[in-house]
């Protein structure tokens, strides 16, 4: 009894959010009517700036808050809107860790099991299993204030998954940690979520975190969902300016259509650069002279040899970032461009990247949009 950790895997939970809005008593509308399907077993990342409603949405799904009348939350088709969090069997991980300071590490992890009324020997076995899984077994008897931030969040994860929740909710779990630890723990959380197979909702304002962890990413702004898609779709086919700018950097060149290219102050970008997948399906090609906008990511432009580039501009600044060099270029369009190239050039000694130097760029892949859209 208790020696063999049970390996019962639960069938993952599918969640449906139907028409959920949330207006706070002071009249602030934190969330506009949102519909969302979370597939069984997937990790869904909720991404957006602070105040976009992502935490409100998480709290509605958790049962810590309730939607305005008319909204419904369904767990596997069952309406749980009226159920408080205590009865939803969800695990939560908070930015502030929220560990119980009056209990040891082991007692924190055991708390949910104790509430469930699990027998002491089974409880001990489960706690040991969880601590080993999070690689914090030696810390079992420590007090919470003796732990580092990274250790605390491991304890919080162990505590959340110990009662085998149907859904794991993580609210900015890595935000309080320093960059290196954040990366390490992010990889671990990713492995943990895959190993557990539990449906998980991960709230973050960090696009790198959302892209790395999410099977799908929901980008939110002003209480609305701006886009739902895989990390690749979100990055390369952003559904609007907000998403494009929030998820990485997006360059824009305004120009006019002329023949097979787009004419802009820095030269002509051939239309061939705009891949077919980027053109909205069924959209008619605008005629010559129509104002259009080219969009591309920093890594989609390369520095070309003189005479080989599509457009010409002037370097305003360049920064060595280690793995790459970031170059700011002006004079191509009306707004400055950001271009990135490999890290084997030292901008401090290379005169071609000095401020004021002329530079030519080839744009390799760029979606085309009528001006003002996308």
């Amino acid at each position, binding site marked *: 009894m208790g020696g063999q950790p049970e390996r019962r895997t639960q069938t993952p939970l599918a969640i449906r959010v139907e028409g959920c809005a949330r207006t706070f008593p002071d009249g602030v509308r934190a969330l506009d009517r949102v519909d969302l399907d979370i597939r069984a077993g997937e990790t869904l990342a909720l991404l957006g700036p602070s105040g976009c409603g992502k935490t409100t949405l998480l709290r509605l799904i958790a049962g810590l808050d309730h939607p305005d009348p008319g909204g419904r939350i369904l767990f596997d088709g069952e309406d749980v809107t009226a159920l408080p969090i205590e009865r939803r*069997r969800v695990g939560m991980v908070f930015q502030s860790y*929220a560990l*119980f300071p*009056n209990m040891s590490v082991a007692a924190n992890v055991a708390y949910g099991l104790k*509430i469930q009324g699990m027998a002491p020997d089974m409880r001990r076995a489960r706690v040991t299993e969880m601590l080993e899984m999070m690689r914090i077994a030696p810390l079992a008897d420590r007090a919470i204030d003796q732990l580092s931030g990274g250790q605390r969040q491991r304890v919080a994860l162990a505590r959340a998954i110990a009662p085998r929740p149907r859904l794991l909710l993580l609210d900015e779990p890595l935000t309080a940690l320093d960059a290196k630890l954040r990366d390490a723990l992010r990889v671990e959380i990713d492995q943990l979520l895959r190993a557990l197979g539990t449906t998980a909702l991960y709230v973050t304002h960090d696009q790198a975190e959302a892209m790395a962890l999410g099977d799908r990413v929901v980008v939110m702004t002003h209480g609305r969902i701006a886009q739902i898609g895989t990390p690749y779709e979100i990055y390369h086919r952003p559904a609007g300016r907000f998403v494009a700018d929030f998820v990485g950097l997006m360059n824009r060149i305004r120009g006019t259509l002329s023949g097979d290219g787009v004419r802009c102050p820095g030269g002509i970008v051939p239309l061939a650069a705009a891949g077919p997948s980027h053109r909205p399906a069924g959209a008619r090609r605008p005629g010559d002279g129509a104002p259009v906008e080219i969009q591309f990511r920093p890594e989609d432009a390369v520095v070309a040899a003189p005479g080989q580039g599509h457009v010409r501009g002037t370097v305003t600044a360049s920064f060595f970032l280690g793995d790459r060099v970031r170059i700011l270029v002006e004079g191509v369009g009306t707004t400055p461009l950001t271009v990135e190239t490999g890290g084997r050039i030292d901008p401090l000694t290379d005169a071609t990247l000095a401020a004021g130097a002329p530079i030519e760029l080839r744009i390799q892949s760029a979606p085309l949009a009528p001006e003002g859209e996308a």
Partner: protein
Amino acid sequence: MTFFTAFWLLPMARLALFAADGREGWAAYLTVVTHPRYFESLVATVLLSAAVTAATLVTGGLSGVFLSRHRFPGRRTLIGLLTLPLAFPGVVVGFLVILLAGRQGLIGALSQSLGGSRIVFAYSMGGLFLGYLYFSIPRVLLTVMAAAEKLDPALEEAARSLGAPPLRILLDILIPGLMPALIGAGALCFATSMGAFGTAFTLATRISVLPMAIYTEFTLFADMAIAAAMSLVLGLLTWAVLALARSATGAGVAAAA
């Protein structure tokens, strides 16, 4: 150091020696704790203070947690009103108790008009209890509110997500989290009740709490030695409670007191 000597050491030493200088010498201290009349008033004072502390912690604690958790119109005004007793001297508090539960008091009038007898408890332990409660609650309220606001609301939410019902959250999360503040506020409340004089003086015609007894010894019987001895016993007892509270919470209680 000079200040310490001038305002603490010298008066204390004088007080201690004064008690020993009386008819009974150092036995005055013994008398204070063995003589039935003095001992009774000592026990009564301690019991009253303990009861007031307990009642204050429950009411002040509950309302403090509530006020720190909820935002509603008029909240600031309510907190302002609740802390008003801090501004009243003990005599005024005593006067208020008489107005409420005295011979011409509101409670008496009400009970009489309801057909019962006239309820008067202002001049008993009950009245004193009410008066002390009245000026103790604001202190506890403010301390608990400050502590409750610092308590991470995510703690409670984490416990709820693990399935904990409200009572468990109270026992496992809230009370342990507020413990330092509760002990600190409680010790302060106890010390204030032990030494409160104004209210007792206004009300206590028939009760003998320690500060009253000291006053009586001192003025009526002119037994300076016993009065001094009682003062020191009162002081030491209160100080011991504060010290106990301080060791229980780590630090900061005596400083707050």
